[in-house]
């Protein structure tokens, strides 16, 4: 399931909704990405997340589909916020549920790595002095992504 929204989300409520009425789940992993108060060593006061309505949903659904094809997941959820956010605010939530813990962990990490490098979101940070700048894509995110490609080749 995917949701793209301006409003905040509630981790406990989302996990409870996924588990409700089910007794077959053995492992639930959540990842929550939050706004940090520093970026590149400088304090930031806020950030604005712009996205590409229409494409965002397509990309998140594609990423989720890849995870569902690869791991035995009983449920998965991606919520990504857009708009203006302040330090401490939630940005993204990923939840995976599986009978086994390794599948839940790997799928959650995979979902984050993929959406970091393919979901059309762009962050603009505001410093305390009022200056605003677009965040550069990080090379480490591309590196994180590559490990899933390596794993796939090795398994083929």
């Amino acid at each position, binding site marked *: 399931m995917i949701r793209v929204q301006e409003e905040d989300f509630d981790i406990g409520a989302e996990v409870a909704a996924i588990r409700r009425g089910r007794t077959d789940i053995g492992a639930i992993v959540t990842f929550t*990405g939050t706004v940090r108060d520093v970026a590149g060593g400088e304090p930031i006061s806020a950030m604005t997340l*712009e996205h*590409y309505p229409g*494409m965002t949903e397509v990309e998140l659904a594609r990423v989720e589909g890849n995870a569902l094809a690869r791991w035995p997941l009983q449920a998965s959820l991606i919520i990504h916020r857009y708009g203006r956010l302040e330090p401490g605010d939630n940005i993204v939530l990923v939840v995976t549920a599986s009978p086994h813990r390794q599948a839940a962990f790997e799928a959650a990490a995979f979902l*984050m790595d993929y959406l970091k490098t393919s979901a059309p*979101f*762009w*962050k603009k940070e505001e410093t305390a002095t009022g200056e605003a700048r677009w965040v550069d894509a990080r090379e480490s995110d591309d590196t994180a992504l590559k490990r899933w490609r390596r794993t796939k080749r090795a398994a083929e």
Partner: protein
Amino acid sequence: MTLKIRYFAWVREQTGRAEEDLVVPEEVASVGDLIAWLTTRGPEFEAAFARPEVVRAALDHVHVAPDAALAGAREVAFFPPVTGG
């Protein structure tokens, strides 16, 4: 060929527009051709595409390479590498 062109993040800020509908000449066959043609429209487009290696493109909501053919596409988007999550 009429295309909806959309711009995001600093590409949007540099071109000074979020989207526009453009009639594109027939000889503009690929995403790369489209970028070349757009840069002839004015200094704001020249600036936005000055470093083509940092501009990404999507055709009808799918990421594509610069040599992707435009044939059949309705919407083209240009944006920087994504930084969500």
